[in-house]
Every structure is written in structure tokens, then in C-alpha cells.
């Protein structure tokens, strides 16, 4: 077993292939993460400000997220006019999932901001867009990063499903292994997928620390005084 693995990895051709798969996997997981976030932020902002829009958008994102990924990979080419084996299909599909996953955290994060902080921002003379970009969004970072962490893990694992239509990054190793009943590529694929998820997650946590220097203390449980009936 170990010998098999060593033999597989010692082969320069395999090394090159695995490295290529890893790069493709990162690209196909992380580009949609950024795209999805860029869509989710303005959509979430608009939904947070308009009650009717909020109901529609939150309902739509729930439904979008339940569409099976394989189905989406297969349907998208006919909608986008792309070839069935195009990487873009997976990228767009995952961007849709990411956006669907992140709209709610954006809405929730803004909902949770203290009213007195927002009123003060308005009262000192911020216009709505500038207030969102410089007050609401930075304060939403902790909640937003929590959402992005979930989305990143979800994307990194979903890319593998793309292997079923021939574009799956590290997922290709699984199909190769299954087709030839040969375990080493499968093990390498699993280990690298997990490692990639872990590294991206650590980077996200580090990024949150950098972006939220004001959160120096660990999150505290908020105790709200109960107003007595008297």
C-alpha cells in the first residue's frame, strides 16, 4: 500500500499531473469564492434595506443552493453557450452557490449592527453607500468571514464533482483511480483536498484578524438586562 503510493509519487509524470490538478482545483474553487462574495455583498445590502426584496432574495438563494451541483454543471453550458467540458461551467456554478450561501450572512451581519452606531453614522453626514462601505461592511467582517469559511470548504469539495464531467481538478485523481482500481491517486487526491481546505481556512482566519484589529478580546456572551415589570 505504502509502496504503491511511493511508486506513484516517484514518477515525475504523476508529480506533474498532480501539481497541475492542484493548481486547477485552487483556481476553480477560489475564483468562484471571490466572484460569489462580490455578488453577495451588494445583493445582501439591497435585500437588507428593502423588506420585500429581502423575502424574495433569501427565498431564491435557499432554492438555488438546493439545486444539485452535477445538474447545474450539466445545464449551464446550454445557458452560457459554453462547451460541456469548459472549466467556466464549474466556476459559474460554484460562484452561484457561494453567492447563495453568503447573501444571508451579509443581511444578518448588517441586521446585527447596533442601531445607535448606524444612527450616529447617518447623523455625522455619511451618505448611504459610503456608510455601507466604511462603517457597515467593516463591522460585518467577522460574520462575513464565518460565511466565507463555510463557502470555501464547500467549494473545494464541490470542485471534485466536476470530475464527473471531466473538469474537476484533484477530482480527476478519483476518476483515474476508480477507473483503474488503483488507490494511490485517490489517497493523494483526498489528502491534497483536505490540505487545501485547511490552508485556505487558516488564511481566512488570519485575514479576519488583520481586518478586525478592534476585536482584541475573545467574543463575549452578551448579557442583556431584563427590565423589571415594576
Amino acid at each position, binding site marked *: 500500500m505504502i509502496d504503491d503510493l511511493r511508486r506513484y509519487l516517484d514518477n515525475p509524470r504523476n508529480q506533474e499531473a498532480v501539481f497541475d490538478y492542484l493548481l486547477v482545483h485552487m483556481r476553480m474553487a477560489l475564483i468562484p469564492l471571490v466572484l460569489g462574495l462580490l455578488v453577495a455583498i451588494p445583493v445582501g445590502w439591497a435585500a437588507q434595506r428593502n423588506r420585500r426584496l429581502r423575502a424574495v432574495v433569501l427565498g431564491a438563494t435557499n432554492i438555488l443552493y438546493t439545486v444539485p451541483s452535477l445538474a447545474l454543471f450539466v445545464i449551464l453550458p446550454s445557458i452560457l453557450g459554453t462547451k460541456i467540458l469548459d472549466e467556466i461551467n464549474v466556476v459559474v456554478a460554484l460562484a452561484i452557490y457561494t453567492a447563495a450561501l453568503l447573501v444571508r450572512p451579509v443581511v444578518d451581519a448588517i441586521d446585527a449592527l*447596533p442601531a*445607535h*452606531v448606524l*444612527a*450616529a*453614522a*447617518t*447623523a*455625522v*453626514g*455619511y*451618505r448611504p453607500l459610503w456608510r455601507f462601505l466604511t*462603517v457597515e461592511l*467593516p*463591522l460585518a467582517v467577522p460574520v462575513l468571514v464565518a460565511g466565507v469559511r463555510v463557502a470555501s470548504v464547500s467549494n473545494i469539495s464541490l470542485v471534485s464533482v466536476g470530475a464527473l464531467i471531466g473538469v474537476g481538478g484533484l477530482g480527476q485523481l478519483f476518476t483515474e483511480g476508480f477507473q483503474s482500481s488503483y488507490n494511490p491517486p485517490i489517497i493523494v487526491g483526498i489528502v491534497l483536498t483536505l490540505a487545501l481546505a485547511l490552508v485556505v481556512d487558516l488564511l481566512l482566519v488570519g485575514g479576519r484578524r488583520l481586518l*478586525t*484589529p*478592534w476585536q*482584541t*478580546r475573545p467574543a463575549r456572551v452578551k448579557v442583556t438586562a431584563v427590565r423589571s415589570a415594576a
Partner: protein
Amino acid sequence: MIEFRAVSKRFPDGTTAVDALDLVAESGRITVFVGPSGCGKTTSLRMINRMIDPTEGSIHIDGLDVRSTDPAVLRRGIGYVIQQAGLFPHRTVLDNVATVPMLIGWGRRKARARAAELLELVGLPEAMGGRYPGQLSGGQQQRVGVARALAADPPVLLMDEPFSAVDPIVREGLQDELLRLQSELGKTVVFVTHDIDEAIKLGDRVAVLRQGGRLAQFAPPAELLARPADDFVSSFVGRDRGYRGLSFVDADGLTIHPLRTATVGEPGSTVDDWTLVVEADKRPRGWLAPGSTVDGPLTEDVLVPGGSLYTQGTALRGALDAALSSPGGHGVAVDAGGALAGGVLADEVLALLRRRRHGRDDQ
């Protein structure tokens, strides 16, 4: 000068928050809006900087209708202090204070220099500028809130229950601080509170509002206490208004008696009457009860705690309170520096009031 001209605000659900309000807040003065919850005081305040627009009527600042100015631009020229301070948690104290100067394009360096000046003005150490609001106490946050509101030197300052979320002792300190700042800066202040004592302490004029947003009385505090316009005002002003009215009566002609004193650290003896114990610098520490004997040097642990202190030159209320709260009946009067000036008696405060009243009758 801020002028409300027949201003009404009705919300879509049919409630009337403010009903035909006519009122002028004078330049350079503190005008207080006070009333129970639901009286429209905060709504009235927020109509000045257009966070809410009136349904009818208009509001003018120095003759100019506020609705003729873009809201964001208008607000940058009006300081605003909110309950719980409303500081931006993700910005340092210094950058919080620099917010409005940055918005109006002063540039970072100049805005921060100005912010540092403001921190000093509100009595916060410069080192605090680098902290985040979450690391400050409630009282300190409120000072930062005041500094932020003053940063761009706006002529008008709106304050919406700014001190109601801090404890009573801190609140009193902040109120004194506001009066000191106001004596230096002379802003046109509109201050909202539900606390009638705060209104009377801070206001040059006080507008008492009743539920449904109607103005019940608009008068200087002394007049509010002496001549409430109706039952609502008199019940809102409270039971102690006769006593509180003494806050506006000067103490000219009140006799200050010499007191028996002893000094901390000096050899003790037996005292046959209430004796005030002072520090070497004449600051009062407490009383020795009649008949008490002190062996050895006089220490503070044998003392009976004293009552409130009356600072010479302030209103009669403090003198009466000092006398009433003193264990021996002699209220302790101190000078502006806190050193003992002498004693005051409750009887003499009342006698002085009686003489004043007769004096008025004779005219």
C-alpha cells in the same frame, strides 16, 4: 437660532409624534426638550438635522429652511451626540473624533491633529486616542461622543439623551463638563432628556412636551419650578419643586458662622459639642460627636461622616442641603478651593427666604 414653525410629524401608522410645534432655540443657549416617552422629543430633535422630515411646517436654522440643504451636507455642519455614544467600534478613538473633518475633506493629518485637540478639550488623555471604543468605560465613550460632535466646530449641537446610559455619579460629572464646555464654546445646543432634574440643571430654557407631541410649557427652569403652566407640568416637574427651586436663589446675605474645629493628627481631648475635624489644609473630613474623647493623635476612624458641603457663592439649595444633612445641624460651607469657610444653619436659610419674600412684598 433654530426655529420650529408649526411643525407636525405624523407617522404612516397614524400616530402623531409632534403636533404643531412652535418654538425658538436661541443661539448660544442650551434648549432642553423634556417629557415622558412618546412625547416626540427625539423626533423633534431628529427633524432638525433631517434624520426625520416633518409632515407639516418647517424648521429654520438662522433663517434658512433645513430642507433647502442636502441632508448629508446639513448634518456635517450639526454636531450630534447620541445615547450610548454611537462610536464606530472599528475605528480608534482618534479616528472616531476625526470622522467629520475627514468627511469634509480636511485630510488625515489635519483631521487627526484637530481630534487630538478635542480629546484634550473633553478631558481625555492623549494616549487614549489609540484605543478602540470597546476598551473605554461608558463615561469615557460619552466624552469621545461629545468630542466627535464638536470636531468640525459646528455652531449647532444636538444631544439625544447623551448621558442616560451612564451611572448617576458619572452622569453628574458629564453634565458639569458640558456646562463648562458650553461656557467656553457658546454653541446653540438642543438637548433631549426624560430626566427633569437634568433638564433643569442644563437648560437655559426648557420645553416640556406631553404625549402626542404637544408643547406644555416653554420657559426658563426657575419659572418652570415657580409657575408650572398646568397640572401636567407641575406633576412632571415633581413634588420637590419648592426645594429644587432654591437652585435658582442666590445666597447673598446668608451668615457664615465660625465652627469649632480640630485638626487631623494633632493631640485629641474630650469635646463637649459637635466639632468639625479638618485636614492641615482646612479640608473638612468629618465630625466628632459631643462627649467623645480622643486619646493620642486624632485619626479619621473616630469621625462621624459629614453631610454635603456647601460651596460659598452658589445657590441657596446647597446651603440648605448642607445644613439638613449635617449630623449636628451645622452645614459646612467651603470656599471654591474646598477649604473650610464656616457653618450655615437651616433656620437662617429659611429666615433669609422669609426676608426676601417680605422685601418683595414691600415693593
